């Protein structure tokens, strides 16, 4: 079954310790919702706030995330879903969509020899 990375973008600095009780409650019920929609979360990670990020381009090391933006990557999970319609429905149900957004990207599998 196809797998997708669902990348969560939240308002900077996206500190998981600052999540509101309302948000946490929505997150609590999310796994259930994903299953109802026909998807399976394979694995997922939350990130420390973007203030802890360090970026490197060439040999220049910079404090902070890659691009200064209102929204930063807050976490991601790997979703198994039968097709993009299911993946998008799962992504839409994520509470991050309320004040940020999510990006859905299919995982790359090298073509068979």
């Amino acid at each position, binding site marked *: 079954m*196809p797998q*997708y990375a669902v990348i969560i973008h939240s308002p900077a600095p996206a500190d998981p310790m600052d999540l509101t009780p309302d948000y946490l409650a929505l997150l609590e019920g999310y796994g259930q919702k994903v299953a109802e929609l026909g998807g399976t979360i394979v694995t997922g990670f939350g990130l420390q706030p973007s203030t802890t990020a360090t970026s490197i381009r060439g040999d220049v090391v910079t404090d902070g995330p890659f691009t200064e933006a209102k929204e930063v990557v807050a976490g991601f999970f790997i979703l198994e879903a*039968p*097709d*993009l*319609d299911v993946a*998008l429905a799962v992504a839409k149900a994520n509470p991050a969509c309320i004040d940020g957004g999510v990006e*859905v990207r*299919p995982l790359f599998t090298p*073509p*068979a020899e």
Partner: protein
Amino acid sequence: MNDVEEAVADAHRREWAFVLAATARVTGDLDLAEECVQDAYIAALDAWARDGVPRKPGAWLTQTAKRKALDLLRRDKVFRAKMPLLVEPDADMNVTTDETDEIPDDRLRLIFTCCHPALAREAQVALTLRLVCGVATPDISRAFLVSEPTMAARLTRAKKKIAAARIPYRVPAAADLPERLDAVLSVIHLLYTTGHTAPSGADLVRADLVERAVALARMLLALMPDEPEVRGLLALLLLTDARRAARTDARGRLVVLEDQDRSLWDRAAVAEGRDLAVAAFRTGRVGRYAVQAAIASLHAVAPSTEATDWRQVVGLYDVLLRIWPSPVVALNRAVAVAMVDGPEKALEEVDLLATDDRLAGYHYLPAVRADLLRRLSRFGQAADAYRAAVALADNDAEREFLEIRLAEVVDSAEGRSSGG
């Protein structure tokens, strides 16, 4: 063109979507399907000249394209390793190479896949023209005034996304249908308006877009006869297109509705459009296309601008604003209000709309304002508004029309100041 070439061209026009949609099931890949269908049409030129035109050209082409696809798939393991297009399992999933006449009609799947919301609107439009209508890439690029490599890249990118992100090859479930259908209707409508408001220089290519859009709407209605908005869209396109011959003068200049020679309107198209609009209203589930069609049909049956039932036009715009709260609709409503309550009242509404950011840069706003000011004999202000509209207009015929009006009000303004 000889008889065989004519038969192949005819089959291209009528059957392309059907043949491609059916072949895509076998290939599981739109790119490969497109290639096989293209080959099948080329093969038809020889085969039909040799053996005669088959009884069912569509079935012949589909079988030929499918056979080519299976040959390629057998020969090339890379193709076989490709992930299949996702097709909802159903009874006719067992694809066979039998010479059977029973080929499932997959055109709706093809249309909904091309217009999937995960694709950008411009990609949806390009894919629909290429895959559903069978228009060649150079022709699409010319119609949208972009270079051929740009259009080719746009199509390739879209097809790659369908395969990689696994956009399913299916008609959406009932719950998603209204939203998904709306995307399909928007694509067809956009095709139409792109052709309809064409600069006169490219009018040949653009007239073709208009016809493609009408043909697509007809195809969709045949496939989804119970959707009132599909009926509404076809009605709207027919009623708008009925005025085509009167929209420009002999020199290609724009003629506005009130100055059009109504005897040039296509009466058959008007009659068909009206019947469709009435049928859409009869369902009691009217959407924005049906309401716009109803407005167009009030114009179409009126013998003149003065004799138009403007009160009912305003009433329909009120309905339209409720289902589609758009400042563009409100602007059009203001034009109708001017005919019922006079330009002064309409100007108040237009000035209110001018504060809406969504209309910033929309040239019809200053154009409508200018016309109202002109009718109020406030020529100096009208000239300013026409200048603003000219600066924003991107269509040659429209700009020329606005410049003529501008010259007129400048004359009137000077005539008044020097004369009295």
